[in-house]
């Protein structure tokens, strides 16, 4: 016969780790949350479905290399080509990272622990950046591994591949900072999804309109700047400057590379500053 003993309250005298450990734990927890791990099955559908959609072109590309002995999608152009899917991923998942803690006022449970507001925001940005990066980088790596195995006659585009990974990380940071900032100002999750996708559609739709307008007035150099309105083409223009890849705009060249890089840095800083301000206000409540 078994008996259950009440062993009473036990004290904890093990190690108490610092804020760095806490920030890492929060990053991993948030990253798992983006992909719905440890959540209901329903919250896994969207991120994994989009992940599969991102993998399809990579699979087609490998098949093309194996059967027709020619490259499908260039590594440098993958993100621009798949931008709609990446944007939907950002819009659907960024609110899950920030909205529940704000809406359900979980933030005080964090801030009454060793972690600071700054570390909290940093962990959230890192988690979202890692998630977007995974979504873009996994197909890229798959394509590269495929190319290694297929062994085309051409030399391996290692530099282009490495460049595309670096720029994928930069793009992920830009998208995440903006996505989280927008989502944090709209704590209702549905509203967050809608506003992130609305901002993306605006940048996506404005480009051709502005481009055509400038071109019709004969201002070719002015028209080129229109591309930088969209985050994907902005990052592509920096890639083109840094790694010498061909522009993946629909038509025409990008304006100067250094200017694009500067705009990129300013935009990331602005989004992070907006996030910081939002959370300073939320923490004071």
């Amino acid at each position, binding site marked *: 016969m078994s008996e259950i003993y009440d062993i*009473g309250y036990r004290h904890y005298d093990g190690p108490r780790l610092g*804020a760095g450990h806490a920030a890492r734990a929060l990053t991993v*927890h948030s990253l798992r949350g983006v992909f719905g791990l440890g959540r209901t099955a329903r919250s896994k559908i969207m991120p994994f479905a989009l992940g599969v959609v991102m993998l399809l072109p990579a699979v087609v590309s490998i098949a093309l290399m194996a059967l027709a002995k020619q490259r499908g999608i260039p590594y440098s152009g993958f993100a621009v080509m798949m931008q709609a899917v990446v944007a939907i991923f950002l819009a659907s998942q960024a609110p899950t990272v920030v909205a529940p803690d704000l809406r359900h006022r979980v933030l005080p449970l964090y801030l*009454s622990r060793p972690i600071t507001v700054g570390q909290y925001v940093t962990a959230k940005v890192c988690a979202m950046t890692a998630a977007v990066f995974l979504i873009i980088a996994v197909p890229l790596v798959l394509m590269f591994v495929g190319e290694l195995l297929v062994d085309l006659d051409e030399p391996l585009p290692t530099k282009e591949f490495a460049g595309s990974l670096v720029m994928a990380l930069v793009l992920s940071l830009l998208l995440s900072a903006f996505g989280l900032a927008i989502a944090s100002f709209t704590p209702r999750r549905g509203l967050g999804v809608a506003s992130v996708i609305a901002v993306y559609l605006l940048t996506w739709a404005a480009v051709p309109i502005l481009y055509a307008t400038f071109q019709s007035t004969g201002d070719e150099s002015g028209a080129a700047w229109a591309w930088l309105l969209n985050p994907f083409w902005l990052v592509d223009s920096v890639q083109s400057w840094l790694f010498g890849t061909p522009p993946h705009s629909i038509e025409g060249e990008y304006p100067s590379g250094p200017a694009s890089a500067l705009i990129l840095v300013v935009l990331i800083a602005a989004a992070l500053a907006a996030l910081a301000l939002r959370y300073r206000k939320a923490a004071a409540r």
Partner: protein
Amino acid sequence: MHILATEGLTKRFPTVTAVDQLTVTVGPGVTGLVGANGAGKSTLIKMLLGLLPPTAGAARVLDMDATTRGAEIRRLVGYMPEHDCLPPDVSATELVVHLARISGLPRTAARERAADVLRHVGLAEERYRAIGGYSTGMKQRVKLAQALVHDPKLVFLDEPTNGLDPRGRDEMLTLIRRIGTEFGISVLVTSHLLGELERVCDHVIVIDAGRLLRSSAIGEFTQVTRTVTVEVDEGTDALAQRLAATGQRVTPHGRMLLVEVQGPGTYDAIRDAAADLDLALIRLEQGRHRIEDVFREEAASV
């Protein structure tokens, strides 16, 4: 030894002074912080956690300055907020394990502690379900569990009985008493209901509009007064007359009589009077101050 101490602690917001020149010390055990809504209880706790810089004065928690060593304090202190603060889509286990790790516990220790503490607050199988489906009572238990999971030296419980039914309230109060005694964790518990703190606290601090009204041991609040309550089945008036005739000071109080105790003779007089008149004595009880009375007196005199 003081668990926490404040010295002239003041917090002014643009429109209101939430905490005003508060100087108070708290020892180990269970301490009640009593005040009406808006008396400054939550603001005080935020300052003690080092989350809100005071306008003036200083606070020390576990012998650390709250303004400069907030992070260290927060590692050894637990906090249960007054408001709802639980995400609905995760299970209690997952949330409490996660928050244990944020408090600095390694992964395995966090799991063990979370399981232990959820058992202590009385959450059984339901702890694996999403919190969204919990009752108010269960949510309060999860909020308490997350405050205890890192085995703090001190917990701040902000209105833990809020929204609970009488039975839930009783269970929560019993649990708070156990935390202070059996678990050996000092507790600062706030409430706007004075009566319920009487049962669980060793010490009570009363604040109103951010100012200290009174701080003393529970015994002093509920000290024995110099009256005895007498209740008889019938013949209350006759008893009152007989007692008054023997020189006792009697005041009728509903169906009962309050008799001022002048010495051991008073008890004899009551006994003799009841016996002589052949009355059925139902109750003979020493009068006690209740916290409510004290609060009312203090509030009236300020």
